[in-house]
């Protein structure tokens, strides 16, 4: 597998830290409970249940003079050490949220996988498309490779990395299921990370399934020996695994909360429908934000209210404080927009035709090929809204203006 970029692709400084290296916050499940295995008098308690047993509320968990009782339903997940000045160093019983036993996903047939995917309404976070439809389209194409994309090739987002770190093995199983459903033998997880993080994640995944991309370059494309490769989101893989193993509906996402108005940038695991105000109150705002952005800073959509919910397809939300907007100059004709365009368009030429109302000249420049990656607008040294003009060009393409009746335009 090889990762390719346009010849003069956009290289940018990463803004992922500190969110990328912090553990994922959980908004969606009961947090882990710790029950000390030493009582107030210093007498030890011995657990009565086995590791991974599910316990009911009120169940006796330990023996001893003052035994422990389970406060809620949960799973005996681990014995953990608490190190504190007051408690000294004592062991504690960690009670995690209840998890049903997974079904055996390795024996499922492709049809069963697609059926489970459909029933769970799994949405691919890369493009917001329905995963079942996408897998059907991939099965019909000549793709030779399926890639779970955890690259996060925009400056702020690190949700793919956080998902892999939290649920690496499940994501790999989900990718295996997706590859089976699409009829592809070769599948890999693609990741952009520092060496330490990469090694940590590599240890949790099946051998040889993780590929590392070392560049901060936008956008990226994967291929195998010149043939195109199909990509699915790593969160969609996780959702597919949970759909097949537990019959669970796709209801959760990992979302990066960042931006220069956020005090603790972090990855947050939350249910769909969580309003922006909730995640920003969890991560804290240092400043009155000027705008909220649904999506990353290259392609996101600015909104001015935090009442909006986070819906499938969003993996990053930003709160940006007011900054002096850069001066917009006239096009200096440097040609950088054309150099970074991975669709090989001429954004400056399309923008000029749109500004001069020469819409009949647009079809030969094929603005409809634009996939909205916004690299041209990021790279523009004159800070011109090139991408917006290209988008306008798609709508206006071929339109003929008759006479002087152009009242819509200034």
């Amino acid at each position, binding site marked *: 597998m090889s990762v390719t970029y346009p010849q003069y692709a956009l290289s940018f400084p990463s803004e992922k830290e500190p969110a990328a290296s912090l553990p994922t916050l959980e908004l969606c499940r009961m947090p882990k409970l710790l029950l000390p295995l030493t009582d107030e008098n210093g007498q030890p308690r011995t657990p009565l249940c086995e590791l991974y047993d599910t316990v009911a509320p009120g169940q006796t968990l330990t023996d001893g003079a003052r035994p422990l009782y389970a406060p809620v339903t949960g799973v005996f997940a681990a014995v953990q050490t608490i190190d504190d000045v007051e408690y000294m160093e004592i062991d504690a019983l960690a009670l995690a949220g209840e998890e049903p036993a997974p079904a055996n996903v390795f024996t499922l047939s492709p049809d069963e996988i697609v059926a489970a995917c459909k029933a769970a309404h799994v949405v691919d976070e890369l493009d917001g498309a329905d995963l079942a439809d996408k897998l059907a389209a991939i099965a019909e194409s000549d793709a030779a490779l399926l890639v779970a994309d955890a690259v996060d090739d925009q400056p702020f987002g690190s949700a793919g990395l956080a998902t892999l770190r939290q649920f690496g093995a499940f994501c790999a199983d989900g990718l295996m299921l997706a590859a089976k459903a699409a009829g592809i033998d070769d599948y890999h997880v693609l990741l952009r990370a520092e060496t330490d993080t990469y090694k940590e994640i590599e240890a949790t995944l099946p051998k040889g399934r993780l590929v590392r991309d070392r560049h901060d370059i936008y956008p990226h494309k994967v291929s195998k020996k010149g043939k195109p490769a199909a990509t699915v989101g790593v969160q969609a893989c996780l959702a597919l695994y949970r759909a097949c193993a537990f019959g669970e509906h796709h209801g959760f996402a990992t979302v990066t909360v960042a931006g220069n108005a956020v005090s603790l940038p972090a990855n947050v695991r939350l249910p769909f429908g969580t309003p922006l105000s909730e995640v920003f109150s969890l991560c804290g705002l240092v400043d009155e934000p000027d705008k909220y952005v649904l999506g990353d800073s290259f392609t996101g959509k600015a909104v001015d209210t935090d009442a909006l919910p986070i819906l499938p397809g969003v993996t990053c939300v930003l709160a940006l404080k007011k900054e002096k907007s850069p*001066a917009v100059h006239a096009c200096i004709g440097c040609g950088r927009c054309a150099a970074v365009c991975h669709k090989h368009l001429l954004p400056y030429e399309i923008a000029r035709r749109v500004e001069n109302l020469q819409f009949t000249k647009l079809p030969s420049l094929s603005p409809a090929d634009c996939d909205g990656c916004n690299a041209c607008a990021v790279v523009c040294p004159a800070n011109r809204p090139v*991408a917006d003009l290209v988008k306008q060009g798609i709508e206006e393409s071929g339109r003929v203006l008759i006479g002087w009746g152009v009242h819509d335009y200034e």
Partner: protein
Amino acid sequence: MSNLRNAPFSQNEANVSTLSLDMLLALSPAVAFGCVLFGWRVLLVVGISIVSALFFELLGGWIARRPSDLRDGTAAVTGLIVSLLLPASVPLFVPVLACAFGIFLVKLPFGGSGHNLFNPAAAGLAFVTECFSHHVFAYPAREAVIPFTLRTPEVNVAASPAGLLKTGGSTAFSWYELLIGQVTGPIGTVAILVLVACAVYLFVRRGAAPLLTVSCLAACAVIAALFPRSADITWYESILFELCSGYLVFGAIFMLNDPVTSPRHPLAHVMYGVAVGVLTMLMRHFGQFEEGFCFALLLCNAVSGVFDRFAWQLLRPRRQRRKEREV
């Protein structure tokens, strides 16, 4: 929600000001080397030229009731380039007039920076070349001491390598003198090795397109090898003398790479560079003056959009094939 700008919300560090700053930085070694070779009057010529360029930019903006932004740095670059193409002993009104013509008549009437059809520095220089060729090509002799004075200094004048080639004689300079700038000539253009180092900086910073510079110089070298202007030099001597005389290398690096007036497409870059190179050599062979680069550049400026369109048409089949492969 009019205050909400659309995506993107982060911007590359390179902007118009940093591009101009790169250009000024790349030109500063040429200024320093000019001071070493020709004395401190170089600073006077450079300073007057830059200040007058900034002044005319402001004045033009005031007359047109349009705010002029000097921070984009394009006016300063124009002033600096103009001054570096003149001899160190030039009367000070010459760079002022060149900047006035370039900015006032060539740049601003078309809409200011970003909209100008012709390179203002080349246009200003072409203007003073036509009007005051006896000042513009009067290069001080190598041993002459140029006093630091506002008046026009009285110095001995010697022929530059380009002038010697024009009169049909072989140049009296050796190859290393040509490369390190121990020759008569304009302030900033004689030290070829310094200019090449500056070019490498610009290429690395992506402030200049290597294809433009290289194709222009290559075209000149081919013509120089095929048609030497003097009977008693070999073909490789001809290439060296032609490339290192006049301000061909300087122009190919700093004037040809003006992004506003040059084409955008890599293939168009090659065609445009070759066209400028061929026209420059034609001007040198058959023109009135010893150096014709700025005239060649202005001629090609007028049709640079045509090169772009031609390249776009030429690559249409390739685009089509690529598109079919991707779907």
